[in-house]
């Protein structure tokens, strides 16, 4: 039976590769809008106040709020979900994603929700917006977006858990698939909390902010936990999977101590359960020892992964591929983010709560995840896009992004150390201007990455441009409808495309 192509193939397709590409494309577009909004907000607050420079007093908070929520909900999570939808079924040797039609529905639900969310902001909605029905539309459409993401998360998690090829036991799944299993499980645990919060906000706002008094005026603050420690780590879990897979492939070696690697990823995922940190439940939750403990522990799994990457590269013959360069840079930026986050645990000494220090930590984490996304898209470009991306751009863009993250976050952190909040003040204009330049660099790096993904046109793309070990490299580029033309290669170890060298390899780990 012929598979529909063209527009009919896109609209009606339940092929996970098509759906994943749609997710990535839509998320990149929304990410661009979010980045521009962030820069506009940054320019506006150079003088330390909102709404005086290029945005008026009503628009400025909306722009900042849009940037804060869309960077996670409309850009990073859907983009990572798109990458997952394309690569994960291939990695575990599945012919299709679990619940293929639900995967398609998740994208279209996300797209409708995202479009309505952007519309709501555009017509003076969003948290604290001036038009009541637009604020209601924002709450409802953001909820719809989350429903779409949850549906997609179920599909990805179920694929890793239940649609693996014969011989692909759970401890043999590639690191990206494992990290995305952990990510999607954490999203499934925490995003419903955001959904419930939005329902509360909607009902409260609809009833004149009297039904659950006090929630209305602080709407933006109620949803800000999504981009703050520890919940923000939930968007960065795939960083560890990308770097481990890219390092093993670039080093042409088996990953040493897979159990420790899986444990580190899992531990980082557990530390990303931050739904309890929403201030609607408890404003003082940031001061709780549990929150501080999670902040202090977060750097440890990242350090462990960096150590494993070093071991992997030392034992092999590493090539500086775009995936490796991007993966390592993403992990380093993430490590910096967790260290910045750990400092918030010393609240009595540093008094960082509510300052730009927290914003710096969020920016570092989100840019780290963005760099990992770029690295992943380049590493698996033949599977995601069906073409080899430009390697030069793939190595340069993460560098620009990482530099942008530093230029963006360091002034913010310094402002935080000086005790300056969002509302401040004199003396930090220069640092705010530098931070805006950093945001510009981040946007530039993103555009460079997208330009490089266009790659070179070609008809015969290599199935495996890197000499990879895992199952996704055993199929054509782009992969056929059923993922593998013939039977799925036998899986007798965690690196099924490598010939076993010792009897231990047969056992998998």
């Amino acid at each position, binding site marked *: *039976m*012929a*598979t*529909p*192509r*063209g*527009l*009919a*193939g896109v*609209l*009606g*397709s*339940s092929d*996970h590769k098509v759906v994943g590409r749609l997710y990535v494309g839509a998320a990149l577009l929304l990410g661009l809008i979010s980045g521009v909004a962030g820069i506009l907000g940054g320019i506006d607050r150079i003088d330390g106040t909102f709404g005086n420079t290029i945005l008026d007093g009503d628009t400025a908070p909306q722009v900042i709020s849009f940037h804060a929520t869309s960077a996670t909900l409309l850009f990073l999570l859907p983009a990572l979900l798109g990458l997952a939808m394309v690569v994960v079924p291939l990695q575990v040797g*599945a*012919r*299709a*994603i679990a619940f*293929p*039609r639900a995967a*398609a*529905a998740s*994208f*279209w*639900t996300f*797209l*409708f*929700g995202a479009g*309505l969310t952007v519309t709501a902001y555009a017509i003076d909605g969003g948290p604290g917006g001036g038009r009541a*029905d637009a604020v209601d*539309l924002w709450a*409802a*459409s953001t*909820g*719809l977006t989350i*429903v*779409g993401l949850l549906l997609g998360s179920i599909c990805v998690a179920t694929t890793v*858990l*239940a*649609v*693996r*090829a014969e*011989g692909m*036991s*759970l*401890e043999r799944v590639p690191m990206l698939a494992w990290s995305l299993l952990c990510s999607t*499980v954490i999203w499934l645990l925490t995003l419903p909390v955001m959904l419930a919060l939005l329902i509360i906000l909607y009902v409260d706002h609809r009833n004149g902010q009297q039904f659950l008094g006090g929630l209305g005026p602080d709407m933006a603050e109620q949803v800000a936990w999504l981009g703050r420690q520890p919940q923000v780590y939930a968007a960065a879990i795939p960083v560890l999977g990308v770097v481990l897979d890219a390092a093993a492939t670039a080093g042409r070696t088996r990953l040493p101590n897979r159990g420790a690697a*899986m*444990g580190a990823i*899992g531990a980082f995922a*557990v530390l990303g*359960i931050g739904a*309890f940190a929403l201030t609607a*439940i*408890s404003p003082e939750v940031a001061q*709780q*020892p*549990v929150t501080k403990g999670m902040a202090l522990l977060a750097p440890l799994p990242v350090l462990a992964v960096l150590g494993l990457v070093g071991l992997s590269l030392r034992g092999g013959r590493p090539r500086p591929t775009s995936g490796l360069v991007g993966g390592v840079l993403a992990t380093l930026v993430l490590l910096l983010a967790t260290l910045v986050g750990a400092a918030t645990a010393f609240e009595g000494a540093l008094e960082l709560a509510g300052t730009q220090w927290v914003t710096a930590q969020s920016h570092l984490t989100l840019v780290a995840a963005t760099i990992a996304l770029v690295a992943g898209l380049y590493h698996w470009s033949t599977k995601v896009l069906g073409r080899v991306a430009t390697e030069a751009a793939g190595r340069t863009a993460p560098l620009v992004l990482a530099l942008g993250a530093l230029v963006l976050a360091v002034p913010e952190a310094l402002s935080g150390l000086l005790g300056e909040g969002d509302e401040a003040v004199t003396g930090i204009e220069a640092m705010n201007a530098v931070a805006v330049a950093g945001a510009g660099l981040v946007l530039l790096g993103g555009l460079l990455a997208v330009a490089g993904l266009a790659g070179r046109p070609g008809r015969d793309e290599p199935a495996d441009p890197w000499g990879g070990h895992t199952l996704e490299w055993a199929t054509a580029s782009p992969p056929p*409808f*059923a993922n593998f033309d013939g039977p799925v290669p036998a899986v007798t170890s965690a690196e099924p495309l490598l010939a076993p060298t010792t009897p231990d390899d047969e056992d998998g780990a």
Partner: protein
Amino acid sequence: MLTTGSKWFFGVAGAALLAALVYGGATNPSEVKMATFTGVLTLGYKGGVGDHIGYAILMGIAGAAVFLGASLAAFRDADVEAEAALLPVDTVPEVTAPPQGSYWPVIGAFGAGALVVGIVTSSALVMLGIVVLVAVAFEWAISAWSDRATNDPAVNQAVRRRVMMPFEVPILGALGIAVFVLAISRVLLTVPQLGVYFIFGGVALAVLVVAFVLSARPRLNPSVVAALCVVGALAVLAGGVVSAVVGPREIEHEPEGEAEDEDQQGAPLLSPDAPVVLTGAPS
């Protein structure tokens, strides 16, 4: 024997439980006594716990991890070999995506979108969203059933069509006609009088031409058909929505008094009681 996945989650559960017990007891401001231990062991039922939030978070993580660990142990990490042994078969069937396209996911998302917009704007859209979602759920269930009817996707599609076509064609046809008529009628009420003639003729002509092309080229590229349908539906819907928002144009009604005057200026009406005079009749 415990599986890899279950070991991991049971480990997390144990660590979280231990942390919860220590944390709940250590943060209890009262002096250490038996109630301190029974409190953290009984979720605060017999005795107290210290910081409730932290204790609840750690206990929540432990509970979720136990559930996930038990699930993975029960299903043997969903390993294919274990599933095959349970069934009992040599190999379990592979999961495959349906090769034929299905627009129901898109339509379902549209229904959800209509529902969301409707709860903010109007109950009519809410009803539309609910109706669409119910229809999609029904269609989806039938598709899921027919996907597994046989091993041949072509036969499965034929089975689905045989079951659903008698319902789909009349219902979707009637629905399409209703939406089309409603939307076009809004447009005709809104545009100037001269525009009505053009739109009325133009739409009819467009429908005729498209129908002619579709019937003359039955093997037309599905993408072209999809594009035509999407563009046409969006144009009609957008026109209808915009027209409904703008509202109907002002139609000048002739005042009743003037009409009466005109009647009076014309030929007088005969009263039923008026005498009838025959003219030109043979005398």
